[in-house]
């Protein structure tokens, strides 16, 4: 988004736009204790972003069944039986967490295909995407998906286009129960802390705010009634960027760059010694 300052860009060393008045970090807070899994957020996401996932033959509540290039957010339903036989039906809105230290961006080899704005939103700039899928390997939350249609990676943009003009994300706007909230990150942290306290008072002693430090905190946070067990909701307990990504960035990448340079050099010599490839007569043009 040209109207937002950029803090980081993938595979780029040139300076990013920085001229605007300092932008506050923002965050979306998902209060699971208020979520009824109605999917208004999913529908609003598809509407705003002009996406239409498939009408599948998969039965039940988990629909669409997974994130895709057409579903940037999905609800995940998990039935969990407690020790006392009491049942819990845990419902979590899944999607990009907008990490402060985004593994996808770190892993991305395509210049400017992934950016992190000054407000914390991590966005995919699709025209720069080369479809290598490294962002998937880099993501500790298994979020990005490569489209079969254009071989580019897609995920939630936190409605960066709406945020840039002072609107809240489409999902937040559509949420009927107040489960989704959006605002300055510190306000959302405070709000989350208050909700955690509320839940503890209600007897949910394990309630916690999910803002994992392993990725520097996230710009999408959860209030988890079962904060002791993020895994019950399908969340990593202590997400970290895969060491392979750091390896790729730290050592492998320069090595590969050398390899790539050698290949280019080789090609050059090949051209010099053998000349340009000539079209076979009658061949396809």
């Amino acid at each position, binding site marked *: 988004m040209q109207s937002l300052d950029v803090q980081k860009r993938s595979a780029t060393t040139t300076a990013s736009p920085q001229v605007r008045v300092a932008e506050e970090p923002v965050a979306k807070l998902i209060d699971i*204790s208020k979520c009824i899994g109605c*999917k208004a957020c999913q529908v609003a996401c598809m509407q705003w972003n002009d996406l239409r996932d498939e*009408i599948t*033959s998969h*039965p039940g509540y988990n629909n669409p069944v997974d994130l895709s290039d057409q579903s940037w957010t999905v609800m995940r339903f998990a*039935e969990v039986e407690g020790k006392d036989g009491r049942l819990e039906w845990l419902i979590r809105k899944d999607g990009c967490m907008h990490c402060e230290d985004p593994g996808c961006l770190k892993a991305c080899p395509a210049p400017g295909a992934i950016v992190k704005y000054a407000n914390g939103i991590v966005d995919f700039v699709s025209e720069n995407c080369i479809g290598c899928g490294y962002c998937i390997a880099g993501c500790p939350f298994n979020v990005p998906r490569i489209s079969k249609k254009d071989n580019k990676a897609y995920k939630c943009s936190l409605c960066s286009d709406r945020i840039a003009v002072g609107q809240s994300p489409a999902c937040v706007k559509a949420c*009927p129960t*107040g489960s989704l909230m959006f605002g300055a990150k510190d306000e959302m942290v405070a709000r989350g802390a208050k909700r955690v306290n*509320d839940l503890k008072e209600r007897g949910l002693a394990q309630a916690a705010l999910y803002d994992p430090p392993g990725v520097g905190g996230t710009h999408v946070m959860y209030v988890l009634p079962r904060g002791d067990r993020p895994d019950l909701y399908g969340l990593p307990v202590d997400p970290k960027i895969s060491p392979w990504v750091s390896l790729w960035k730290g050592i492998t990448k320069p090595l590969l760059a050398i390899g790539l340079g050698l290949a280019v050099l080789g090609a050059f010599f090949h051209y010099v010694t053998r000349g340009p490839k000539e079209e076979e007569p009658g061949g396809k043009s």
Partner: protein
Amino acid sequence: MTNHWVDIKNADLILIMGGNAAEAHPCGFKWVTEALEHRKAKLVVVDPRFTRSAAVADYYAPIRVGTDIAFLGGVINYMLANNKVHMDYVKAFTNASFLIREDYDFKDGLFSGYDEAKRSYDKTTWAYQLDKEGYALVDETLENPRCVWQLMKSHFSRYTPETVEKVCGTPKDQFLKVAEMIGSTSTPDKVMTICYALGWTQHSKGSQNIRTMAMIQLLLGNIGRAGGGVNALRGHSNVQGITDMCTFSANLPGYMVAPTDADTTFADFAARRTPKPLRPNQMNFGQNFPKWFVSLQKTWYGDAAVKENDWAFDWLPKRDGAYDVMDTFERIHQGKINGFIMQGFNPLAALPNKKKVGSAMAKLKWLVVIEPLKTESSEFWKNYGELNNVKPEDIQTEVIRLPAGCFAEDPGTFTNSGRVIQWHWAGAEPPGEGKSDREIIGQIFTRLRAAYAKDGGKFPDPILKLTWAYANPAHPSAEELLREINGRALKDVTDPKDPTKVLVTAGQQLPGFAMLRDDGSTACGNWIYCGVWSQAGNNSARRDASDPSGIGNTLNWGFAWPANRRVLYNRANTDPKTGQPWDPKRAGIRWTGSAWAGNDIPDIAPALGPDSGAGPFIMTAEGVARLFSLGGMAEGPFPEHYEPFETPLGVNPMHPNNPKVVSNPAARVFKSDMGSFGKADEFPYAATTYRLTEHFHFWTKNVELNAIVQPVQFVEIGEDLAKEKGISNGQMVKVRSNRGEIKALAVVTKRMRALDCGGKKVHHVGIPIHWGFVGVAKPGYLANELTPYVADANTQTPEYKAFLVNIEKA
């Protein structure tokens, strides 16, 4: 709703039972989450399935389908036995102290006066003992064995926690936990709200489900109070408006009971419907019936309705029997009706026993369908393979489709569950040849009238003399209609105490129903809507959300019927003697010393103070609420548990030795359908149908986005049943009832568990309804292939929520 959506935020305890608000009313559910966060309220869910509502509840208890009265009867017994009753409220505001006739009786599951051949009761004995002046006798000590309090105690003493467990399959400890939570709101500083929906209405004793809860709320002192009440969450954005405006054949607008064959003159008719007071000094508001009715006739027939012709009473149809939708389709099935107009109605999908409904429709000579989209009903004659296996060549019905606009393409009003009438504006024009419903009706009527004018006919007056004074008779506007519904003064309306004082000048819009007269000087299309379009303009279009009450009674947002009142019976939110609120922090109205005033429109005459003795339940002739309902209900003055018509137990555990009362002895069932019910030996599983958040009835399967998030038909079964039947998640299964079968994919879940009903293990099969053979979602079966053609005796609502099926791998 006695209360309204926003008011849910004032509750201390929210009970969701007979409904699934999170699933079916996600937007209104925001007021539940509001109460949980800001009032620290608790949420309790009782349901056969662990639902989306249960997912965010503080406590959940399971229940077998069709046993709500046993559960709630158990709660009443618990409250009476454990002194969880708001006694001051009950003594002053209910008929607990009233004496019932000596010949009233309840034996073996039957109340006195049962006529087996007619499947109905003579209700003569279900009445008060009266003194010479016709007033009911009371015993303030509540000790007389014939007083309602004592009869009620004895009636419900049978509903012990053990009995509840046996009938409902709810483990005793879980039942008691819920009963305790409910009982905790019997103190004046605690209020419970109950949110129910079709999970209570769609039973062969649906009205009694709701009545049992109304009794509980009265015993707790929770009616008339902020955060309390008995709250029906209506399923369609304007179904409340439909009910108010009389699309039921037995009603006229505003819940006036329509005339029957027995009403030969206006005098007879008015006398039957105008109640005499049953206690002194009561408002007995029903005594105004002639004013409401004459004003309606003046709206319909204008100058042609005069005192001399009984206000054109003879031009109204007189019912010779029932004409509700169940009865109408029975008549179509019998060949007694051969033409049918459907407007916003998809009966092939919506009525029980699709086979019967489809074969009935095939007997019609013509069928007009007024709809924005193709529906199953408009395609009933077409073969869709297994989904609608008919032979078009055998069906001679001529089907005419008239393309209509949808709600968003038309201005008008919605009346929501909380009785708030809200104007809405058209968002677009109907596409193509689509016309608004108003224009379609206008066109049909003007042509019909022209035909009568030209050709005469046996009885042309009701058509020719109907008032139709719209600027464009072929296309009345929504504004004209709402003004007409509100009503206006035809002559100057004067003060009854001072005839020289003109209250409303001739021609002006009426400010409220207090101005209605029975002398022909006022016209009003629906007395309860009077005030919605006054001289001040269209009050339904008001959008002032300011809330000086602090409790959500936004009196300048839209217009709530009646009289813009937000909480019904709000006089009951105050102490009977002082007129001061039970809870000052949640005060509706209060007695100022000279008048009732406060954060709502008082539901009592402003000057009838605590000393007047006037009770808060102004719509009864005794001024108090009826724990004993007199003749108000078809199946008894107290609720009693009866099994669904298809019962997994085969007997009524409350009356195991009386085969006459296995199921509701007064429920509506046609003789021809008696053989259509299945038995547990062939169909062992308790089934229920319901809705999912992602869809709205049978409409949204036409919408791509809804279809994406909920694409394909499924049925839900518990893990234990799946194991017994060797069914795995996602597998195709066949579900059969004695009327038909469907195939769908199985969703195997922990959220449904077998219940132990007195040693009998009962499994449930859950059947979401939204699929059919038209639309963009994956084609599916109409769930009503399976459901039984039997209905509640008071409302004729079919029993979609409790029946029997078998299930196997397809």
